């Protein structure tokens, strides 16, 4: 086990990397390394974080080239003496590792991410079997970290693509047995920069830290639109 590693942080002001030697232990996460560098070596590193347990979705960044959550990546897993952290691509940089999410939030908003009420009785619960729950629960795990959008090849060039995050959320609500808003949602994503811009490259699912598998959601959703699924 190493006891120090070299952390390379991409700085937005210089456009270059700054290097820090940080101590690590068996459990040290990349976020802890960055915070160590920030707190004791160079205060000016800008990074977003909060929960430190992979639930808030704040700390997405590129770690050794791949999009990942800093708090959910242990140094010991990376098996390397240097760790390079860069801001997530396909998001505008605010400063250093902190990027702007306006577009992601907007796209999420666009797909009507809420139950459209049917004719159920508001005074009690909908009945929903565990099997029906399982049909959408994985998509409900999305923490809006944006890693998928950062990995997607369409996102790399298309500024108006809705992106895997939002499309997977469209599927999350369509697949919910309590929802009555399928047609409206399908209409919204049937846009020239909507669902058709996904080419099933799968990178979104490979980087998703929560097992959401947006690629699956998107293809299943498209199944409805192509008439493969009822």
């Amino acid at each position, binding site marked *: 086990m190493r006891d120090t590693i070299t952390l390379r942080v991409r700085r937005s002001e210089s456009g270059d990397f700054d290097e820090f030697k940080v101590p690590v232990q068996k459990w040290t996460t990349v976020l802890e390394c960055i915070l160590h560098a920030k707190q004791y070596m160079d205060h000016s590193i800008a990074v977003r974080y909060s929960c430190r347990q992979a639930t808030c979705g704040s700390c997405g960044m590129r770690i050794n080239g791949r999009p990942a959550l800093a708090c959910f990546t242990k140094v010991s897993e990376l098996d390397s003496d240097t760790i390079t952290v860069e801001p997530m691509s396909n998001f505008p940089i605010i400063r250093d590792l902190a990027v702007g999410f306006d577009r992601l939030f907007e796209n999420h908003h666009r797909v009507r991410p809420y139950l459209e009420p049917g004719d159920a009785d508001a005074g009690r619960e909908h009945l929903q079997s565990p099997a029906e729950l399982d049909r959408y629960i994985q998509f409900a795990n999305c923490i809006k970290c944006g890693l998928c959008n950062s990995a997607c090849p*369409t996102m790399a*060039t*298309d*500024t*108006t*693509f809705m992106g895997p995050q939002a499309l997977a959320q469209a599927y999350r609500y369509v697949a919910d047995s309590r929802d009555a808003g399928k047609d409206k949602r399908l209409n919204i994503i049937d846009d*020239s*920069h909507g669902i*058709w*811009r996904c080419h099933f490259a799968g990178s979104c699912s490979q980087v998703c830290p929560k097992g959401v598998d947006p690629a699956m959601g998107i293809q299943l959703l498209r199944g409805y639109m*192509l008439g493969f699924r009822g």
Partner: protein
Amino acid sequence: MKIHYGTALASVGLVAVHILMRMADGYAESLEFANVVANYQFLPYAGLLEIMLILLSVHGFNGLRVILLELRQGPSYEKAVSYGCVAAMIGLIAYGTRTIVMVNVGMI
């Protein structure tokens, strides 16, 4: 995109036939002038060529359009790409059709 899938699906069989024809009587023979002309003048085959021409032009240029639309955005750019691709598509179809029709009716 539905057009894209439709044209792709439809052309799978046709392209197969087209290529198999090259293989059926040997690659070189199939390309001899007389054989080629005979093929063109055989109406069903000419029809097949024409359909394939249309399908693949639509598919190919639409594919190109998709890639170009993903590369850059903006209303005027997108319009230009779409019209450009449709124009190229029509041009290619027209050009190919001219060959097929003229050979078919024996204008060589």
